């Protein structure tokens, strides 16, 4: 198929897609599909564009901005970055349990007693809830396995997630918030998931609970999190995404040793350009065959 990448062009991705037999054209009006990494698009898109391949997973902002509209088929990167995002989730979980931020802020062995008392462990059998069980869950579950933790997967359908001890449908998961010792939030941002972790949830959680967010900042109500951490309602949080994002310099979360923050470094453009090509090729093949694309966006669901 003829394709273009617009407005930003990733040379290595273009080369890989060409190598697979597709033809790069620089004119948007000649292309049958468009690879899109953000930026301004013509509105409406030319009719020759059969589908748009977005190179990231989260489409909520594109929908809100009216970039994604009914009438054009869109595919996203769902699942493509499961391994890197899972690695970041693992890093954040371990770093928060082991008080890496507290150690970095203290910069002194005098913090030893405090850190010893505050640190948590995976080896002694905690329960970890993975909320939003897609590619990230597939990546992190095997990483958690050798620690001997109990894993509860929470997803929309309740369909069993491989490797989890239990899978619970979101609608039936109320008890999980008070049961788990650690939470990994990895779900897309939709009307159902926005602000799902709020003051009420923090009140349900154990005092020793740690919440990791690698999904979207808006899954958590930030002010409620600040309060929960300040009052010791939960033990810690670790997040690669924030709300607002970027989190402003001077925001109180930066100063809390119980809150590890990385500046959205999991699925960056650098990582996307290295990993996206197989997703593009699979979607193009399905499109050509007249089928639903493997990562085709369902606007009704919002992802």
């Amino acid at each position, binding site marked *: 198929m003829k394709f273009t990448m617009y407005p930003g062009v990733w040379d290595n991705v273009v080369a890989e897609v060409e190598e697979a037999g597709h033809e790069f054209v620089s004119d948007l009006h000649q292309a049958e599909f468009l690879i899109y990494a953000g930026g301004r698009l013509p509105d409406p898109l030319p009719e020759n564009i059969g589908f748009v391949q977005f190179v990231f997973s989260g489409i909520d902002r594109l929908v809100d901005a009216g970039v994604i509209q009914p009438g054009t088929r869109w595919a996203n990167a769902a699942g493509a970055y499961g*391994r*890197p995002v899972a*690695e*970041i989730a*693992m*890093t954040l979980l*371990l*770093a928060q*349990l*082991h*008080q*890496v*931020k507290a*150690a*970095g*802020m*203290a*910069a*002194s*062995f*005098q*913090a*030893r007693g405090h*850190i*010893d*008392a505050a*640190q948590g*462990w*995976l*080896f*002694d059998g905690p329960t970890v809830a993975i909320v939003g069980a897609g590619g990230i869950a597939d990546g992190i579950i*095997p*990483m958690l*396995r*050798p*620690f001997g933790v109990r894993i509860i997967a929470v997803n929309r359908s309740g369909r069993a997630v491989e490797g989890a001890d239990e899978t619970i449908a979101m609608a039936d998961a109320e008890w999980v918030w008070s049961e788990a010792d650690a939470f990994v939030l990895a779900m897309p941002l939709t009307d159902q998931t926005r602000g799902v972790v709020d003051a009420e949830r923090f009140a349900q959680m154990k005092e020793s609970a740690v919440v990791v967010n690698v999904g979207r900042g808006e899954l958590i109500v930030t002010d409620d999190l600040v309060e929960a951490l300040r009052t010791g309602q939960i033990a810690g949080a670790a997040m690669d995404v924030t709300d607002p*994002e*970027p*989190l402003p*310099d001077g925001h109180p979360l*930066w*100063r809390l040793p119980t809150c*590890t*923050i*990385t*500046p*959205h*470094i999991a699925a*960056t453009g*650098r*990582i996307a350009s290295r990993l996206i090509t197989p997703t593009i090729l699979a979607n193009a093949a399905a499109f050509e065959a007249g089928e639903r694309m493997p990562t085709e966006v369902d606007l009704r669901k919002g992802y």
Partner: protein
Amino acid sequence: MKFTMLPTVWDETVAELEAAGHEFVEDLAQARGLVFNAGPEKLPDPVPENIEVIQLPFAGVEPFNDAGLLAADGPRWANGAGLYADTVAESALSLLLAQLHLLKTAVTSASFDSADTIDAHKQWLFEDKTVAVIGAGGIGVRLLELLAPHRVSTIAVNRSGRPVTGADRTVAIDDAAMDEVWATADYFVLIMPLTDQTRHMVNAEVLGKMKSTAVVVNVGRGPLIHTDDLLAALRDGTIAGAALDVTDPEPLPDDHPLWGLDNCLITPHVANTPSMVRALTGQQAVRNFDAFEAGETMPAEVDGKAGY
């Protein structure tokens, strides 16, 4: 059997031993076993002849070796080897991941402005990396299990070169092949005991053999690394980073320059902490004392000649 504990009685430890049928006695002269939780200078000199076995809480026994106690005729010794496999392996993986993903930079910058720097310099385990686990005893085997789902290649380094479970290959620490290990592995986790052979093993010469992207994690003993050489290597980019739970000197003074380096993550010796030690030492002493009474080699018996 009758045992006592010196110089500090840890209630948790005594309770574990009593629950297993051993009897605590106050009087050293009445005991056959001793759980001893201080340095060699506090040990009764000489150790009374009725003491046949001594359990130490930690894996590192070099002060006792240096004092000539281990090789002497007298009681048999057991240490904490293998006791801290879960805790130290978990801490090692935590430190490795935190340094690869530049968490100290994120903490000290406290700003999304650091995103580009972190994105450009961070490293990923998932991209076909090689991890060398140096000192591959119980902790190393556990770490290899934790690393396996990250699909890294692994090199275990031990004294004998005997293949280590879970490692892709094993190299003997005094083998000429170590040159190639320093040059080819991406990341190094130091867990070996501190001996004359391993003291300052990671010095300027060894650091110079490593890739410029190399990251060194130390959860063994501070003096395994020559601190000044590491400082220089981190400053001039000879290697990319280090993550240390143990330091030399320890505690690392508050004004030490390593604290100020973003590419040097430091935790204050918390992989293996006093609260953990008390909880686990009793269980270890039970295993060793039971084997001792049965006339067997103790699971964590110290080899007096080797020094660990």
